[in-house]
Each structure stands twice: as structure tokens, then as C-alpha cells.
């Protein structure tokens, strides 16, 4: 039993490649839990960060600094009355949130958190991701229609038009990144997510810096299109609370509504992962070719532990700055316990980093490597998640005709140009 477990930790292939269904199931459960947890964290972070952008405090009452607010929210949503309008199409109304949720979570099968830290590596990885994530729009469209009400229908129509237009530009820049993977000795590119990161590793450059500024422009277009694709501000035309009350989910309440939110945040993480994989080197740490001395390896492997240590320090600081009044006693104890938990995780990660510092093939070393890969991948995705909040706090919503104009008349021509130029430059300077 223990031996089998250790052999999995030291595995060098994905469970899909090894054909091990049990291990694949474990990976699926880990990813599902991790993503759900990330959505919970994101919920809290978004409310706090938005509040701080607007010089407010945000949630402060439920738990220290509102840390338990997402749990309270989830409980409230589960207990709320679940209303299905009488005029609604019952079955479609029921199935719509599930379509979005399924599409958002299916994508995670091929996301490479590391060279072997993925459920499976498909030969058509990026194609699969784009296809399945584009199915998510069906959930929105169908929800808007099934509500049998005007605002949701307008939201659904807007959403479908927006998705179809931005998908074109998105697909073209993805093709330009895939073109870059073919610049090797054999001249054969790849669509596999793991293969794309390995191509960046081989060429020694993240694709965002390749053929500067072509890679950067492609990345920028993808970064804009993915905001539109996930219906987030400033492209949240489908919801547009000031125009359509809540857009496509106006008639939804309780648990069903929360499923839409879960799907939205899961889709945000998924598209950010595509951007990270295609242009930002996926699981690779910064400068893997330049700073590859064992000492550098060791210093970089301390990063996960130090990050959690930093978070723990912030929590300790928060505990110390808590007002001395006896009303805050429980909150102070709670925050101290949270700091202790973070500190414990930091300590654990540091111990693993030290135990697995040798670059051999022992299980400890492999485990340490795995943690490094997942850490760098998640860190890059986290930057995108923060950007999503930042956009929302900064930019006003576009008008629908402006949105269409940008999609078809600016982004599409630029992405076509980038694609053609990438092909030309790739042939001239291989």
C-alpha cells in the first residue's frame, strides 16, 4: 500500500498516459477540490480587493477580516428558497447551470500543472480546451431563454453574439502560439498542453517574449478576449446589472444561482491556465536555463514555503493590530489560529524543499519538484485572477456596439496580422 503510494508520488507520467483509472480519479478529486477552494478564496479576495479599491473595508464581521464570509454566503445560498418561475421552461431552466458547470470543470482534465501533474495529456489538448470552454456559453444562452423573461433573454442574446465574435480572435492568436511550437529540429508542432510548455522549455524562451513584439501582441489579444469569453467586467454585457438587473441569471436564486457563479470563476481559472500554458511557460520557474546551478534550484524551491510564511506573517500582523477591546477576543483567537495553520503549511513545504533538495530520482526529490511545478503554475494563474478583479474595479462597461466593433474591427485584423507575421518570421529566422 505504502509502496504503491510512494511509486505514484515518484511517477513521471500522467495517470492518463499510465492508463491508471484509480490514480486519475484521485487527481480529478484533488483538482475538483482545489478549484472549488480557489473559487471560495477568490470570492473573498474579490470582495475585499474591490472594497479596498473603493476605499471601503469590505466584509469585516463574519470571522476576522471577513475570512469566513464565503462560508456564510454558501450556507445562505443553500438555505435560500429555490424559485422556478411558473412560465419558465422547467427542464431547461434546471439543466442550464449544469451545462456551464460541466463545461468549466471538464476543461481541467488537460490543464498541465506540471510535466506529469495533469489528469491526462491529450494530443489535441488546446483544441479540446477551446472547444469545451466554448460550450460554457450554451449554459448562459439556454438559461436566458428558459427564464422566459425579457432581461434574461437580452442577456443571453448579447452573450452568444459576444462569445462567437471574440472566439475568432482568440482562436487565431492561439494558432500563432502553436506555430511557434513547430520551430524545432523536426519542424513539427504540437497541440498537446504539456507539449506546448516543453516546446518553450526547449527553445529556452516563453512565447510571450518570442519574436518580440509578436508574441506579446498575441498574448495581449488573448488576455483581452478571455475577459470577454468569461463575461467579466468590462465585457460583462450578459449581466450588466445597471441595464438588465442581472442579465441571464435574473430569475435564478439560491443554489442554482451559486452554480452559475461557481462556473464563472472556474471558467476564469481555466482560461487563465490556457494563457499561462501558451505564453507564460506553464509550470516553469523564471529563468530555468540561466540560473540552473544547484544553489539556485534550492533557492527557488524555497519559494512555496516562503510564500506561505509571508501569508502567515501578514496574519500574525493582523492579530497584533486587532483592537485590544474584549469584543475582539474571539476574532483575535481565530486569526491567530489561521496564522498558525499557514505557518504550519509553510514549515511543511520548507521541510519538503530541504528533504528533496538533491536532484536525484528519489521520491522526496520528485515530490519536491512536483510542488515547485504546481506552485509556479498556480502563482501565474493567481496573477491573472487578481487582474480580473483589477479590471472590474477600474474600467467602466463597454456599450454593446463598441464591444462588437472592437472584436471584429480591431482584434480580428490584428490577430490575423500577428498570425501571418509569425509564420513569415518563423520561416525567415527559424
Amino acid at each position: 500500500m505504502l509502496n504503491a503510494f510512494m511509486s505514484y508520488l515518484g511517477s513521471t507520467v500522467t495517470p492518463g498516459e499510465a492508463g491508471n483509472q484509480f490514480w486519475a480519479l484521485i487527481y480529478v478529486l484533488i483538482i475538483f477540490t482545489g478549484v472549488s477552494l480557489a473559487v471560495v478564496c477568490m470570492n473573498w479576495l474579490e470582495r475585499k480587493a474591490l472594497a479596498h479599491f473603493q476605499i471601503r473595508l469590505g466584509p469585516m464581521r463574519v470571522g476576522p477580516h471577513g475570512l469566513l464570509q464565503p462560508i456564510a454566503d454558501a450556507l445562505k445560498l443553500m438555505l435560500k428558497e429555490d424559485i422556478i418561475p411558473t412560465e419558465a421552461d422547467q427542464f431547461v431552466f434546471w439543466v442550464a447551470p449544469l451545462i456551464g458547470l460541466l463545461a468549466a470543470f471538464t476543461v481541467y482534465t488537460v490543464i498541465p500543472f506540471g510535466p506529469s501533474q495533469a489528469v491526462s495529456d491529450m494530443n489535441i489538448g488546446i483544441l479540446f480546451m477551446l472547444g469545451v470552454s466554448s460550450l460554457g456559453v450554451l449554459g448562459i444562452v439556454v438559461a436566458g431563454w428558459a427564464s422566459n423573461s425579457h432581461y434574461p433573454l437580452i442577456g443571453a442574446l448579447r452573450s452568444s453574439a459576444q462569445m462567437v465574435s471574440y472566439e475568432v480572435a482568440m482562436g487565431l492568436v492561439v494558432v500563432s502560439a502553436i506555430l511557434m511550437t513547430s520551430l524545432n529540429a523536426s519542424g513539427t508542432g504540437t497541440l498537446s498542453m504539456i507539449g506546448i510548455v516543453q516546446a518553450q522549455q526547449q527553445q529556452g524562451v516563453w512565447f510571450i517574449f518570442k519574436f518580440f513584439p509578436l508574441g506579446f501582441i498575441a498574448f495581449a489579444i488573448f488576455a483581452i478576449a478571455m475577459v470577454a469569453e468569461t463575461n467579466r467586467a468590462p465585457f460583462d454585457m450578459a449581466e450588466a446589472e445597471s441595464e438588465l438587473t442581472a442579465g441571464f441569471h435574473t430569475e435564478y436564486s439560491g443554489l442554482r444561482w451559486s452554480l452559475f457563479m461557481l462556473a464563472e470563476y472556474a471558467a476564469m481559472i481555466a482560461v487563465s491556465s490556457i494563457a499561462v500554458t501558451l505564453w507564460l511557460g506553464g509550470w516553469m520557474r523564471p529563468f530555468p536555463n540561466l540560473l540552473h546551478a544547484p544553489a539556485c534550484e534550492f533557492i527557488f524551491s524555497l519559494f512555496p514555503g516562503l510564500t506561505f510564511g509571508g501569508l502567515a506573517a501578514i496574519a500574525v500582523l493582523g492579530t497584533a493590530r486587532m483592537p485590544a477591546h474584549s469584543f475582539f477576543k474571539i476574532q483575535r483567537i481565530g486569526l491567530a489560529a489561521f496564522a498558525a495553520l499557514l505557518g504550519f503549511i509553510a514549515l511543511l513545504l520548507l521541510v519538503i524543499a530541504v528533504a528533496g533538495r538533491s536532484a536525484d530520482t528519489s521520491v522526496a526529490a520528485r515530490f519536491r519538484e512536483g510542488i515547485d511545478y504546481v506552485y509556479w503554475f498556480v502563482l501565474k494563474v493567481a496573477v491573472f485572477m487578481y487582474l480580473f478583479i483589477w479590471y472590474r474595479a477600474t474600467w467602466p462597461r463597454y456599450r454593446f456596439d463598441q464591444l462588437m466593433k472592437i472584436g471584429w474591427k480591431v482584434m480580428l485584423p490584428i490577430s490575423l496580422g500577428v498570425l501571418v507575421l509569425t509564420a513569415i518570421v518563423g520561416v525567415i529566422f527559424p
Partner: protein
Amino acid sequence: MNSAMNSAVSTINAGMAPVATPWFFYVLAGLAVASGVAVITRRNAVHAALALIVTLLSVAGLYLMLYAPFVAGVQIIVYAGGIMVLFLFVIMLVNIERSSKERRFNRMWPVGLAAACALMALFVSAIAKGNKLFPDRGMTLLESSNTQQIAAMLYGESSRMGQYTFAFEIASLLLLVAILGAVIMTKKKI
């Protein structure tokens, strides 16, 4: 047929045996047929469109089982993700209450029936002569390089024209003409 498929698969992919292949085949095929029937029997156009999406997805699953992941991926992106969203977009603008009360079958149904029977006969004869028409010894199930093989077929490799390059270019030219036609028809003045 299934046992033949299984043996072929197991000889090629000894290290990566597929899971419950007949089971998946029957589930996907049953789903495709059932939702296909729902497409033509549902009175509500949106329900029919949703059933069509299920059909397309299960056919994509069948492509995956035939070791053609590229075709499966394109099927999902183009049909399920793109075309069906546009279908729904149009259907939602149609007055469904009225259209669901109208008679669904017009007087042309004998012609349709005849065409369907002819197609059925073709399929039955194809299956009856299947062993001669589709020999299974020529199968090359290289899932890992499926995309690359399609590219070699369409574009050719190392200065040699691909087997289908000409047909592919003609098809893309036709699509371009269709796009231009759509633009010209919608614009009154260019």
C-alpha cells in the same frame, strides 16, 4: 465488430489498454440515436436544438473512440460550440409559441420517406459487404500523431504535395465565396 475492434486496439496499444470500449461505444451510440430521434420529434425548437447538441457531442465521443481526436475536437469547436450557438441565437428570436402549434409534417413526407429508405438500404448494403469494403488490416491507429498525419495529408510534407491538398484548397475557396456572398447580401451598399 466490437471484438474485432478490441483485438486491433489491444495489439497496437499494449501499454495503454482502453477502458470498457464496447460499453462506451453502446452508450455513445445509443445517446446519439436517442437524441437524434428527439431532434425531430420535439415540438419545441430549443429542445430540438439541445438534443442536436447531445447528438453532436456523442458523435464526437465516437470519433475519439476511433482514434481520431483531431476530428473530435473540431466537431466540438465548430458544431457544438459555434454553429449550435448561432442556431440557438436565431431560434430565440423566432416566436416559438406559434411555431410549436403548426403542423410539422408537410405533404412532401413520402419523398422524405423514400430518401430515408434509400439511405438505409445503402447503409445496410455497406455493412453487409463491410468486410470487403473496409478491411480492418489496413488500420493505423496512431492516436499520438493524428493531427500531424492530417496535416501531412492536407498540406503535404517536405516539398511533396499532400494527397488532398487540391481538394482542400477548393473547399476553402468555396467557403470564402460563401462568406463574401453573405456579406454582400446583408450590405445594401458596399
